[in-house]
């Protein structure tokens, strides 16, 4: 998984997950089907007009096909700020290199250059061999149009929810055990609780061996002190982390049920 780092104007670094060639290809496929559908509709309308005024009917078809081939991606990416219907469906979007939404110039540049990217098939409809090879050859999977417009395609993550920090996913079956933990943990004094949380929060800073040793010790201490036993196959670290998670939860809100989705 490749991430693209961006520094906000507030000098806070964050990152986007770069979209892979697979999801981009699928999005393009959806767009292609849409274009073909719209094209057929245009031909239908043109044919109806053709009956009365052949010249007008022909003009409608010519202009419509021109608008679709050069304009479909351009206008969607411009007006929807980097998304076409296909990209929206796949949850990806085009952004500027510095992490902001795309504007008209980037959309125009990126999509007029589709013509070159689609070589050896000379149609501005979508990356062919050249665009694919170029995209496969650089880290952020940018085709020529992306390189020229300084854009890239990333995933839009909108399903992420605040997760109760230390705990991993709880299943409903854990509820009883959590209630037990909650009750037993109230026996700890303040200093013990603080130590428990500190250990968990700073665990990434420890060396592997020390980390294992400390969690082993803590696990043994709490097992004796609170008269609890870890689940079968549960590591010492996981056992301690679970207790820390219970300590950290908001009063009156069971962690296993608080998350939506």
């Amino acid at each position, binding site marked *: 998984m490749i991430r693209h780092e961006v520094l906000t104007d507030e000098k806070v670094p*964050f990152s986007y997950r770069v979209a892979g060639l697979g999801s981009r290809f699928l999005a393009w496929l959806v767009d292609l089907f849409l274009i073909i559908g719209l094209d057929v509709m245009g031909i239908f309308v043109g044919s109806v007009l053709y009956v009365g005024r052949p010249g007008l009917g022909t003009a409608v078809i010519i202009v419509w096909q021109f608008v679709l081939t050069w304009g479909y991606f351009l206008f969607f990416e411009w007006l929807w700020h980097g998304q076409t219907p296909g990209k929206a469906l796949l949850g990806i979007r085009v952004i500027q290199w510095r992490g902001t939404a795309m504007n008209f110039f980037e959309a125009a540049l990126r999509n007029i250059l589709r013509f070159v990217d689609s070589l050896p098939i000379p149609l501005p409809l979508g990356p062919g061999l050249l665009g694919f090879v170029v995209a496969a050859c650089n880290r952020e999977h940018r085709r020529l149009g992306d390189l020229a417009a300084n854009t890239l395609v990333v995933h839009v993550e909108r399903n992420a929810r605040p997760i109760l920090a230390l705990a991993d996913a709880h299943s409903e079956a854990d509820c009883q055990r959590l209630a037990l933990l909650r009750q037993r943990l109230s026996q700890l004094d303040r200093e013990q609780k603080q130590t428990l949380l500190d250990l968990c*929060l700073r665990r990434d800073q420890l060396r592997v061996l020390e980390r294992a040793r400390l969690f082993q010790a803590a696990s043994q201490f709490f097992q004796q002190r609170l008269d609890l036993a870890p689940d079968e196959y549960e590591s010492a670290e996981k056992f301690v982390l679970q207790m820390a998670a219970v300590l950290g939860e908001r009063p009156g809100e069971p962690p296993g049920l608080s998350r939506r989705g």
Partner: protein
Amino acid sequence: MDLASFLRQRRLDWKRLEEILQHVEGSGLSSLDDEQAVEFGRLYRRAASDLNQAQTFVSGEATERYLNDLVARAYLAIYGKTRFDLLALLRYLFWGYPAVFRRYLPHFLLATLLFFVGGVFGYLVSWYDKDTSRAYLLPGQTIRPPEDGEDAAAEYNTDQLSAFSSYLFTHNVSVTLVAFALGITFGLGTVWMMFYNGVTTGVLAAVFVEAHQLTAFATGILPHGVLEIPACLIGGASGFVLAQGFLRARPWPRREEMARQGKEAVLLLFGCLPLLAVAACLEAGVARAPDWFLNKGLKLAVAGVFGLLFLAYILLLGWRQPSSRESEA
């Protein structure tokens, strides 16, 4: 601060930010009222600072990831969007564009030079080897010298004219856009396009000269050519501007210079759309009009008028426009 209390304190704000974001992503920033807009900005800055804090002090990968994605969404929603402004567009078209054109005059001249070299080459080839040049170098649909006693152009009614002019417009725009897009091949593709268009014109000229029909050639080409050929050359010039970003980026990073030049190239390129629209109407309506409708002198007069208008537009307008206003459009 430990993670537990960090989450406990900040979660409501994040939830609120998510709600506003959902709203903004649906109906746009402008749909927020003043109070909400202020709140949105505050919540975003707060979330960014929370992200900073999470990255630095709190170790909880899930929280950090969540905050990262939240800030990323808000960042996209806030920055980089420009609103469509018709007035600015018109102002750009009349005053901004001529200035942009003059800024890239060398590129335009390079395209012109290639076009002329191609034209001379086409003419000479046609002179020495008629059959080959005609078989390979002339496009399928083109004008040809009239036979004796034949009117120079077929007669179209207005209905057919609409089809014809839309064909011309879309075709010419496509050629121009392709000439521009090929700029990314370090300009080589654009060089070829300019040269080839010159060759076609040169061969065509030779064909007419040989048939002693130079006036027919002039009346058939010039009324729209005075706009169409510059438009095509502008497409080539913008292709060269694009290529320049690739080739001569120093002292800036190539990535940034390319994007900057790319924007300029698009600015230059899109100015030729109105030219091509007018040219298509002229070609369908004037250049191929039958002689009884518009005689040759009148056709040439139209060509002259539009040529002068184009020159005046490019040379006279937009001198006093401060350069900062151009970039608004």
